[in-house]
C-alpha cells in the first residue's frame, strides 16, 4: 500500500458536497490502554452532488464507523469531514439524513406518526407534515399503510417506509448503513431498483455501506473498496451507467466484469480478516 489514499480515492464529479479528509478512528478499551484498535486509517474521499458512492469492504473495516463520523454521530480521532465546505462537529439534520441497517421506524408510533415525529425533530413547520408524509408514502407505494403500526408490516414493507422517511426529510445528503441487510435476496433487488428510480429524481449525494457486491455495482456511480482492519481506501471503481438503472443492467457482461473486479479486490482482504483474531469483532 504505497500510493496515498487521497490519490486513490480521486475526486467527485462536479462540486463535492461531502469531503472526507484523512480521517482515522482509534478505539481504546480504557484510559491509557495500550491495546488500541485502529478501525480506520487515513481515509480520504469526496462525494459530489447527485452521486451515489458505495463503501465496500470486509467486516470490521470500519465502514459503519466512517458513516457515523460523516453524519456527525461520532468524532474522528484524527482528520475531518466537511459538508458543503463546513466542518462536521455534530449531527446536521438539515443536511444529512440517515437510513440505518435495521428499520428504525419507532414501533410505538403509526407509520404517519413516524413521519411526523421525524419532521418535527428536523424543525419542519407543522403545516407541511401531512403533505410531505403523503407524498413520501405515495412514492414508495405504501400510502395504504399510513395508519398501521410498524409491527403490523413485513420487514420489506418496513424498510421501504424507512427509506421513504429518510428521503422525505429532503436533505441533500443521504447516508445509508446496509439498509437492506435484513431482507431476502429478492426483496433486496426490488428495493434496490426502487431506490435507483427514487434517487434519480431527487439528485442527492448518497453514501451507501453494503456487503453485497451486486448491490454496490447495481446502485453506485463509484465504489470505494476498503482493506481489512484498519480500514483504508484500497481502490475506487467507477460504474459508468446512467440512473435510473433497470434490471437489464444486471445481465450485461459489463455488470459481471465489474462485480468480478470488486470481488477480486475483496477476496484477499477477507481471507486476511479471517486469519486475524483481532478482526473477529
Amino acid at each position, binding site marked *: 500500500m504505497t500510493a496515498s489514499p487521497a490519490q486513490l480515492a480521486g475526486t467527485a464529479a462536479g462540486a463535492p458536497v461531502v469531503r472526507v479528509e484523512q480521517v482515522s478512528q482509534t478505539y481504546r478499551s480504557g484510559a491509557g490502554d495500550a491495546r488500541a484498535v485502529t478501525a480506520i486509517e487515513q481515509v480520504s474521499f469526496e462525494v459530489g452532488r447527485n452521486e451515489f458512492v458505495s463503501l465496500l469492504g470486509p467486516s470490521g473495516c470500519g465502514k459503519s464507523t466512517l458513516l*457515523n463520523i460523516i*453524519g*456527525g*454521530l461520532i468524532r474522528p480521532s484524527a482528520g475531518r469531514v466537511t459538508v458543503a465546505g463546513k466542518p462536521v462537529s455534530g*449531527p446536521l*439534520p*438539515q443536511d*444529512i*439524513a*440517515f437510513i*440505518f*441497517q*435495521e428499520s*428504525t421506524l*419507532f*414501533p*410505538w*408510533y403509526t407509520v404517519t406518526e413516524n413521519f411526523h*415525529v*421525524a419532521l*418535527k*425533530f*428536523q*424543525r419542519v413547520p407543522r403545516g407541511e407534515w401531512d403533505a410531505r408524509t403523503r407524498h413520501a408514502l405515495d412514492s414508495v407505494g405504501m400510502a395504504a399503510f399510513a395508519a398501521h*403500526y410498524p*409491527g*403490523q408490516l413485513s420487514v420489506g414493507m418496513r424498510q421501504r417506509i424507512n427509506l421513504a422517511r429518510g428521503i422525505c*426529510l429532503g436533505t441533500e445528503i443521504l447516508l445509508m448503513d446496509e439498509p437492506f441487510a435484513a431482507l431476502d435476496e429478492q426483496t433486496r433487488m426490488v428495493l434496490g431498483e426502487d431506490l435507483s428510480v427514487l434517487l434519480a429524481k431527487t439528485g442527492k449525494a448518497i453514501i451507501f455501506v453494503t456487503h453485497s457486491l451486486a448491490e454496490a455495482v447495481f446502485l453506485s456511480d463509484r465504489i470505494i473498496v476498503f482493506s481489512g482492519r484498519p480500514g483504508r481506501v484500497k481502490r475506487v471503481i467507477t460504474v459508468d451507467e446512467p440512473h435510473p438503472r433497470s434490471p437489464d443492467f444486471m445481465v450485461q457482461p459489463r455488470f459481471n466484469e465489474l462485480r468480478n473486479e470488486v470481488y477480486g479486490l475483496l477476496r484477499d482482504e477477507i481471507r486476511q480478516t479471517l486469519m486475524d483474531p483481532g478482526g473477529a469483532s
Partner: protein
Amino acid sequence: MIGPSKLAGRLIQIGAVVAALAIWYLATRHQVTKSLFFPPLAQVWQELVRLAQAPDSYSAIQVTLLTIAKAYGIAVLLGIFTAYLVTRSRWATQVFEPLLSNMFAVPLTLFLPVFILFFGIGANSKVAYGAAYGFFPVALSTIAGFSAVDSHYIKAARSMGANGWEMFRHVLLPAAMPIVFSGLRVALVICFTSVLGGETISSIAGVGRKIALSAELLETARMYAWILFVVVLMASMNGLLSRLEAHRQEAAR
C-alpha cells in the same frame, strides 16, 4: 373475548373470594371463633351499610385518596426524572442503580417516626412517606427501561435532530414504557399500602385512622367493614391499571 381457559381462571378467582367469605360465614355462625375477634359476616355488612350512610366516612376516604394521589404523583414524577438523569451516562447508571436498589431494600417503615417529626402528624407525613417508598420502584424500573432502549432508535432520533426533551418524550419514554409500567404498578400498590399503614400507625384522619380507632375501641365489626372497603378499593385500582396497560399494549403493538 373470553376463551375457555380464561373463563376457568376467572371462575377460580371468583371462587377463591366466595370460599373465603363462606368460611368466614360458617366459622362465625357456629361460634368456632370469638365474635369479638372475628364478628359474624352479617354484622360486618350492617356496619358497612352504616358507614356508607355516615358523612364522616366520606371525609376519611377523601383524605386517604388525596394522600395516595399526592404520594403517587410525586413518586412517579420524581422517579422518572431521577431515572432520566441517572441514565444520561453509563457511569452514573453503574453508580446509582445499585445504590437505589439497596436503599429500596431498607424497610422505610422504620423511618415513619422521622417522617412524622419532619412533616407533622397530618396527611403531609403520609404523603412524604408514601412518595419516598413509591419512588424506588418507579426510578428502578425506569432506569432499567431507559437502559434497555435499542441504541438504533436513539441514533436515528439524534441524526434527525431531536433535542433532549424530544428524545425523552418521543423515544426514551415510549420505548421504555412496558418496563416502566411494571414499576408504576408496583409503586401504586406500595403508595396505597404505605399511606394506609402510615395512617393506621399514627395519624389524625383517613381510612387508616378509622381502622386503628375501631380496633382500639374494640369495634371489630366496624374495623372489618373498613378493611373490606380497602380490599375492594385496592382491587378496583389494580384492575383499572391492568385495563390501562392492556389498552396501551393494544395500541402500541
